[in-house]
């Protein structure tokens, strides 16, 4: 929509009671570069987070000869997840649930302390958009230059810069997708395979998909992802309270706006004069194109860049900093009423509650991790036939036993059954040792399934069903695992 159309629309809407049209066309945002403590913090976080993302797969962690030596690895083929000293099997995926609860609660805690910290500083969408904007500035110039370019006719130079920008964007996007697949297999090997076109097709397909999403999200959609696609701003808006810190504009100090000279003159006469000189710097540097002076709004990701911009201007015109700054909604309201703002309280019931939940879930997970059993045993009773009558009349039940060896070396387990007197246990394919014990060997970090036969004489069987338990004991450490099951016999009287 052209500016003229926009004006016509606004004119037509005036006095109709319709605030905004149902469908708002996107106004392209040309964020200006800015310097200041928040910008520098954001650069630092960008370097740290991207550094972790791009290089973590190459970090090694020695687990001995029977497990991969990649510190962080999602081994889908062998159904294992490795994270430094932690190894998780598929049946332990509830750890991930705990991790997700902690992640959600951390997000809530951040929100209770200082609003959309995640959005403004840590979210991948923000980080990569920042990186893409940096490339845009390098190739096409800053805000004013880019706006001029957009309105100017096509020239060879403009085309060259545009091509260079997209080339660099695609390179970054490609590396982003490439780093992702490295988390799923041995990174150095895959890296070489990718470079020599030996890698599996799946790797290339995923790289292509993620290259596409990075390129489109960070290059073109940018703030629209935050405003329209992301659920967090909506949830965040419902969770926030008036004691959380937010990037705010101080109405009491800023209004009425006016030029520096005019307001200086007014101030001299004692007439009301604000500090805001209406320079639009806060608006110009905003990556989502909002005017912070309109107050808290859903498009604002609270990155703090307008604080840097405003402080720079305040320094220039010799007014105190902090016209835009982190403040709570309660204080904003108090200032509007002319009252003294309260002290900012980070320790509140809300933040304490979130912190407590994080601590409790963290403690439970830590406990589960520390006491994680390095062996496991499960039993599955045969369904057909449920029991078998042998030639001598005794009754036999068959079970599939699965032994889990979660340690990274081979182990041997004594398998036994209890709960039935004089029951005889045979493990198919396993010879008993001299003292009549069935010893099952299981490879490192592996499971093994064996068929177990439990036999008992007909006379020793008193009921249709007996509770029994299988016990697997580590021959070396003496630790054992138990699996409960039933022994089923025929109904009715004995023949």
């Amino acid at each position, binding site marked *: 929509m052209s500016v003229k159309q926009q004006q016509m629309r606004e004119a037509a809407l005036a006095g*109709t009671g319709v605030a905004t049209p149902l469908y708002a066309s996107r106004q392209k945002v040309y964020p200006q570069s800015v310097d200041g403590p928040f910008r520098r913090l954001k650069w630092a976080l960008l370097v740290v987070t991207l550094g972790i993302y791009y290089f973590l797969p190459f970090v090694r962690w020695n687990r001995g000869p029977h497990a991969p030596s990649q510190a962080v690895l999602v081994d889908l083929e062998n159904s294992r997840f490795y994270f430094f000293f932690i190894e998780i099997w598929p049946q332990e995926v509830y750890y991930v649930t705990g991790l997700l609860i902690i992640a959600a609660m951390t997000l809530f805690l951040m929100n209770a302390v200082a609003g959309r910290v995640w959005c403004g500083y840590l979210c991948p969408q923000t980080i990569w958009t920042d990186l893409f904007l940096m490339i845009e500035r390098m190739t096409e110039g800053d805000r004013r230059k880019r706006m001029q370019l957009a309105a100017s006719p096509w020239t060879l130079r403009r085309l060259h810069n545009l091509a260079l920008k997209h080339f660099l964007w695609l390179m970054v996007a490609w590396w982003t997708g490439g780093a992702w697949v490295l988390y799923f297999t041995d990174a150095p090997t895959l890296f070489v395979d990718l470079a020599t076109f030996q890698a599996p097709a799946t790797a290339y397909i995923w790289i292509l998909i993620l290259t596409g999403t990075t390129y489109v999200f960070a290059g073109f959609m940018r703030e629209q992802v935050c405003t329209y696609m992301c659920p967090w701003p909506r949830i965040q808006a419902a969770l926030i309270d008036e004691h959380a810190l937010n990037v705010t504009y101080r109405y009491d100090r800023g209004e009425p706006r006016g030029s520096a000279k005019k307001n200086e003159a007014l101030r001299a006469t004692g007439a009301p004069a604000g500090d805001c000189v209406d320079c639009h710097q806060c608006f110009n540097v905003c990556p989502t194109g909002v005017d912070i002076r309109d107050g808290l709004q859903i498009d604002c990701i609270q990155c703090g860049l307008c604080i840097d911009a405003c402080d720079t201007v305040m320094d220039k015109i010799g007014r105190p900093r902090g016209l835009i700054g982190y403040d709570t909604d309660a204080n904003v309201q108090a200032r509007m009423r002319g009252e003294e703002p309260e002290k900012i309280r980070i320790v509140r019931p809300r933040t304490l509650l979130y912190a407590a939940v994080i601590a409790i879930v963290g403690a439970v997970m830590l406990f589960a991790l520390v006491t994680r059993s390095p062996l496991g045993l499960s039993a599955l009773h045969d369904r057909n036939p449920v029991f078998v*009558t*042998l030639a*001598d009349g005794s009754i036999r039940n068959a079970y599939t036993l699965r032994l889990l060896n979660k340690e990274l070396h081979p182990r041997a387990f004594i398998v036994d059954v209890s709960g039935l007197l004089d029951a005889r246990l045979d493990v198919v394919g396993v010879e008993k040792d001299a003292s009549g014990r069935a010893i099952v060997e299981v490879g490192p970090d592996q499971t093994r399934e064996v068929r177990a036969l439990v036999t008992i004489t007909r006379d020793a069987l008193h009921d249709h069903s007996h509770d029994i338990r299988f016990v697997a004991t580590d021959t070396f450490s003496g630790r054992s695992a138990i699996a409960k099951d039933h022994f089923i016999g025929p109904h009715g009287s004995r*023949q």
Partner: protein
Amino acid sequence: MTSAHKEHIDPHTGTSTTGHEWDGIRELNTPLPKWWLYMFYATIVWALGYFVVYPSWPLISSHTPGLLGWSSRGAVTQELAALQHKRAPMVSALSQASLPEIVKDDKLRGFAVAQGRAAFGDNCAPCHGAGGGGAVGYPNLNDDEWIWGGTLDDIHQTIAFGIRSTHEKTRVGMMPAFGQTGMLKASEINMLADHVRALAGLSTEKSYDRAAGEKLFGEQCAACHGDAAKGNQEIGAPNLTDKIWLFGADRAAIAEGIHRGRGSMMPAWNERLDDTTIKALTVYVHSLGGGK
């Protein structure tokens, strides 16, 4: 209407109108979002490409094959071939190893049992039951009693050539129909039925005369079932003294067996399954619990 009409904005929705008006009602101008429209065009282009490379247009007796020559049957064949290729090393190891070697090697046995279980479900389960639990007339393969022998070789031979099958190497042996052929009278059959129950330690009718039963058994049955009635696996004569009854242990069922004879059959599977599959089946059945 001219194209240069002044844009009119609908006051209620704030949306521009197309300039069309009927009875004072104006049509709102709400074009599709561009991204949606371009996606729609992209799907059309995609569809055209699809027509060319995949089978699409029906012809009178067939269809256009498409440049890729893809077909669902071909895809299945390919997947099966890929699976066979993946299993090839283990299958070839299985085909080269002898049955005792397979059973001794954990890895080979595990593979054979898995293959055997699948083949059993496809071929054997209709008669013997999903877990080899058997039914009346179809032996339970989990117990420790074998009519034709329970060693690996015995089981292999039974599966490969069948029992009373059409194969020339089939196992044969027949329980004669003593009643139907007039070899025994009804009273003698009843007496034998009682005697067989007595051999297994089951209750008998009051009229049962052990001495007469023993004499009759010696004359008519011992030739196959043995003097001690322990059976003979060479000819598939079952042990009559144990607790396992293929056709039931009640007097009527035993009498019926003597009267009509028994001779159920099992097909020769080497006519339908390859040798590796039969080996896998052998190891699987042997592992169920009764293998000797």
